[in-house]
């Protein structure tokens, strides 16, 4: 509650404006009263008029600030119109009664009046000024409401902008999970190296493979699925570039059953697993790493098997972020799936993925 009140208090600019406004009104009103006294031949100096009127106008400054704070609190939460009207009515009663009591008390103090006449004074005063006070209050309320709605609109615009930034961040994050930025730099370096070595045809091929990969990532809608043949094409693009980099180390064998090519699977599901296999293989000192990928269909399941060599003292400890992201995705997408990563009897690293074939494919 304390923080809500703190957040609803107007800023210094509003407070200074309110003070200056009521000071000006006070001065003009005092001048008008002085002129009226002059015409009715009453003897009261201009300063005395100003001084005696000061309790009513000074208190208006605080009433304006309190009204703005209360309006912001009432309008800050989603409430029914009826609730809001009742709350505004209650606020009006409390604020006006407080205003009348406090300003009269100040007036009595600064003019050294007898407090035994306090009640009768208020009664007499109200019979003359209650309508004016109500009108002023409603005018102030309209002003505070418009300011609140204006603030709300600005806040909404700001929230929308923040949301857009968050969305862009999320898209960038997705892009990064799909394509490792280090791979991108290495791929570009491969093309640059090939151009330097005047192996133009290979450089063209490297850039064409990279373009195909970027096209799939940038033009594919994130929530849409992808055909197995498209996923395999992407993996082939990736492996082709990696083979250009590690021509002395990397062998690739891909076999995909004919009846799997048109099946639809989540977009970019297989690539992180292949990337993981290549990264583990890159730790090999001299042996050639054979990355063997096979995709087949067993009943109502799509079976993906990936084997690769792994160095004894592999520095890529555990499984990369790509694999853990894949596991998270699988858990969200399927009730029944299997993703095993282990070293088999022959010392090869084996990744097995089994996912149900979606209804759309049946």
């Amino acid at each position: 509650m304390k923080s809500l009140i703190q957040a609803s208090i107007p800023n210094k600019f509003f407070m200074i404006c309110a003070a200056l406004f009521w000071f000006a009104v006070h001065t003009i009103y005092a001048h008008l009263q002085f002129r009226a006294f002059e015409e009715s031949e009453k003897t009261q100096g201009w300063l005395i008029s100003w001084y005696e009127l000061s309790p009513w106008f000074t208190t208006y400054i605080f009433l304006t600030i309190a009204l703005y704070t209360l309006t912001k609190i009432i309008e800050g939460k989603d409430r029914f119109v009826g609730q809001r009207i009742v709350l505004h009515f209650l606020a009006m009663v409390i604020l006006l009664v407080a205003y009348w009591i406090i300003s009269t008390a100040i007036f009595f103090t600064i003019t050294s009046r007898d407090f035994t006449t306090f009640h009768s004074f208020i009664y007499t005063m109200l019979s003359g000024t209650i309508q004016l006070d109500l009108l002023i209050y409603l005018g102030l309320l309209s002003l505070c409401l418009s300011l609140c709605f204006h603030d709300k609109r600005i806040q909404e615009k700001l929230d929308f902008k923040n949301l857009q930034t968050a969305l862009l961040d999320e898209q960038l994050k997705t892009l990064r999970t799909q394509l490792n930025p280090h791979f991108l730099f290495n791929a570009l370096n491969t093309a640059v190296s090939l151009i330097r070595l005047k192996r133009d045809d290979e450089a063209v091929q490297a850039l064409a493979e990279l373009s195909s990969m970027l096209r799939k990532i940038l033009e594919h809608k994130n929530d849409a699925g992808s055909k197995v043949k498209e996923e395999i094409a992407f993996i082939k693009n990736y492996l082709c570039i990696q083979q250009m980099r590690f021509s002395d180390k990397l062998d690739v064998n891909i076999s995909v059953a004919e009846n799997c090519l048109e099946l639809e699977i989540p977009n970019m599901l297989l690539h992180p697993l292949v990337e993981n296999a290549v990264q583990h293989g890159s730790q090999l000192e001299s042996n050639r790493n054979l990355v063997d990928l096979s995709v087949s269909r067993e009943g109502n399941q799509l079976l993906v098997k990936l084997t690769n060599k792994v160095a004894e003292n592999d520095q890529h400890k555990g499984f990369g972020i790509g694999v853990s992201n894949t596991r998270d995705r699988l858990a969200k997408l399927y009730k029944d799936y299997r993703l095993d990563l282990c070293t088999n009897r022959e010392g090869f690293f084996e990744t097995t993925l089994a996912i149900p074939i979606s209804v759309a494919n049946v």
Partner: protein
Amino acid sequence: MFDILIVDDEQLARETIKYLLTQCDGIGRVFEANNGKSALQIAKQYQPKIVMLDIEMPNINGIEVAKRLPDDISIIFITAFSHFEEPMSTVKCTGYLLKPFKDAEFYQCFEKARAIQSKLSQQVT
């Protein structure tokens, strides 16, 4: 004449650096290593004066290799990983190149290393 050691697990990267070095004068023997362990063995056996060192490598990474090399060797890190800037600052090195780099950047770095080595050899004689 300075002997040079190129350490990179990527064959293409080694070939490229070798090619760039052919454009320079005063180059002695050029050795190659595709992992940290071999790099240390070659450095011990042939004592090259300038080492062009990749960071992400099998066995022992480039930062570790740099720590184990003698102080009088000029090291130039060549990497695609900009996040290695901080660990690189813990090792004495002449410079570093982020892949892909421009020819001018490579030669600028290399000339700096060569100037250091010339100064060191003059001090010895």
